[in-house]
């Protein structure tokens, strides 16, 4: 493999790689790009993800999307059709074996699920079902369907699902490595996602728009907004370079309302800034807000309150889309009814907030200023490390810890940066690790944490962080001592 750079993959190399990938598992041979374009072109308007996003963006609406995936095609179609009346766009969550390209184990899960009469997989093994199985699924539903997973090497998954009429594909070389893998080198996953983006770019060149959505929330646990923003911007730039045109950038609810609103507003602004400065103009940018991704309360009424706070903030911040949680969140994969309940509660809250006054305050503006200063500082360092190339720069930044995702399993991540909540519940930096933030920003973090420490009469420590991680499921935002 040649050295990683942020340049469009050349056609010959791409085609050679493709031939190899489609040979890597039997169902790969079912993919033909010409056929795939025809399948996409034949999709009715109401099944095209980019159309739904553009309409929502134009009308200032917020779309709702659940998570859902089970082992078998027919059962998965039934599940999606049970959710469809309560949401705007559909998901297909991929199982964890497929995410790690363990198709043999996925097949075992399919077989055992058939035997057990219930899904033993935590998602839909799209590669094993192949183009035909996936097409049966897309045919069986009446709304746009997105592939949602967590796959460092999603090349075959992308080939198969896009050939079957899925019109949106979540993930990215950083966001589907650092929180989802342990041993995968970052240059490799970024390179594999350049392939996925290039594939989407090829569809765009044929006049077929496919939505791409970098995964915003990362580890979903006390992630400071600038950390996920930098990843979102990097993956946006990487995607644009490969010809992607419809991009949805994501953010996972942190819990403090002012910080969350500031985060979503600044994400849109910062992304446009970097995309336009890098010379891209022909793209559609939308945003997605993930309801709380950390630990949930086991009680369903309490869990619904967590969902409702996310719905309120998402709508106040005017997210284009919300990824909706369920009252069963603490217990893992939800039933259809629990998933519907999450959607219904979210819809009610979004509708009630929809027409209300724009929320603004000095606190929100302050958070925006801090986030922007942080993102610019890290992006400058990434460009410096990559000598102007953000792909090289991203790899180097994770190596040095200039970029650092808290609580990530990947060895490619330094793991020194440690977040903690301040006295109002906003996420601050207890330990900045090697991230090169400006002195005034660091002082701001320090002061905010000191305010909390004083209030709780204890020194900031990792115990405070542990308390914060467990706080929401214990019915609090800030993990105070008992």
């Amino acid at each position: 493999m040649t050295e990683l750079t942020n340049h469009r993959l050349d056609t010959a190399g791409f085609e050679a790689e493709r031939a190899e990938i489609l040979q890597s598992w039997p169902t790969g041979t079912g993919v033909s790009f010409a056929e795939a374009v025809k399948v996409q072109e034949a999709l009715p308007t109401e099944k095209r993800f980019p159309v739904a996003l553009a309409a929502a963006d134009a009308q200032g609406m917020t779309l709702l999307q659940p998570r859902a995936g089970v082992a078998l095609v027919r059962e998965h179609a039934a599940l999606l059709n049970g959710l469809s009346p309560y949401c705007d766009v559909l998901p297909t969550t991929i199982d964890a074996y497929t995410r790690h390209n363990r198709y043999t184990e996925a097949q075992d899960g399919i077989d055992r699920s058939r035997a057990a009469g219930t899904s033993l997989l935590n998602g839909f093994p799209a590669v094993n079902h192949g183009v035909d199985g996936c097409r049966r699924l897309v045919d069986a539903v009446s709304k746009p369907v997105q592939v949602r997973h967590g796959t460092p090497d999603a090349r075959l998954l992308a080939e198969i699902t896009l050939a079957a009429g899925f019109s949106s594909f979540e993930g990215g070389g950083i966001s589907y490595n650092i929180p989802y893998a342990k041993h995968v080198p970052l240059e490799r996953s970024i390179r594999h996602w350049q392939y996925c983006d290039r594939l989407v770019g090829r569809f765009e060149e044929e006049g077929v728009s496919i939505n791409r959505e970098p995964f915003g929330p990362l580890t979903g646990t006390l992630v400071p907004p600038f950390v996920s923003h930098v990843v979102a911007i990097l993956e946006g730039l990487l995607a644009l370079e490969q010809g992607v045109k419809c991009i949805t950038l994501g953010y996972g609810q942190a819990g403090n309302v002012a910080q969350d609103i500031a985060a979503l507003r600044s994400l849109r602004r910062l992304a446009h800034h970097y995309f336009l400065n890098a010379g891209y103009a022909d793209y559609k940018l939308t945003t997605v807000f993930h309801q709380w991704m950390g630990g949930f309360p086991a009680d369903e009424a309490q869990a619904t309150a967590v969902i409702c706070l996310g719905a309120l903030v998402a709508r106040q911040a005017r997210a284009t889309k919300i990824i909706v949680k369920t009252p069963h969140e603490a217990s893992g994969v939800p039933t259809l009814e629990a998933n519907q309940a999450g959607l219904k509660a979210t819809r009610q809250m979004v509708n009630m907030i929809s027409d209300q006054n724009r929320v603004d305050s000095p606190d929100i503006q302050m958070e925006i200023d801090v986030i922007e200063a942080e993102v610019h500082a890290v992006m400058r360092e990434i460009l410096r490390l990559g000598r102007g190339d953000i792909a090289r720069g991203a790899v180097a930044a994770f190596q040095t810890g200039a970029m650092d995702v808290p609580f990530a399993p990947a060895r490619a991540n330094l793991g020194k940066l440690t977040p903690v909540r301040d006295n109002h519940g906003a996420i601050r930096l207890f330990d900045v690790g090697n991230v090169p933030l400006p002195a005034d920003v660091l002082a701001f973090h320090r002061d905010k944490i000191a305010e909390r420490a004083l209030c709780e009469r204890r020194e900031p420590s990792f115990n405070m962080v542990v308390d914060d991680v467990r706080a929401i499921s214990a019915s609090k935002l800030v993990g105070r001592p008992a």
Partner: protein
Amino acid sequence: MSTESQDYKIVLGVIGADCHAVGNRILTSVLTQGGIDVVNLGVMVAQDEFIEAALSEQAGAILVSSIYGHGELDCQDFRARCEERGLTDIVLYVGGNLVIGKQEFSVVEAQFREMGFDRVFHPSADLQEVIGLLKADIDANRPAQLARNSRPLADERLGLSA
């Protein structure tokens, strides 16, 4: 009781293709502060990795986490595999969201106990309680007192042993 001076070494990890790292970090931090010597294998740990670590570290217990719902598949035959590899009498705990979907905990517990796990925990289990149980179970599983007495007790009492 001289349990304070005893060593409680355990192997901890998230099994299978599961990459949920947060709980693993929290567990390590809380158990360590609770006086447990934690050998943390992190996420995406295979059965054999748990067993090898338990053998080489002479651990008293293995704590298996599974958050993503594949616990039922990933934990199959774990106890049998331990015994096959000569790891007899080790304390086996499992905890997390062990199955797909919301199921009655007592049913899940019975299922995993049937599979050979000594204790089965909710994701929201009280970690202080887990520490207490772990120490008691490791103590109960130790070789007979006689054998133990052959160890340099004086040093232990004086806190001189590493």
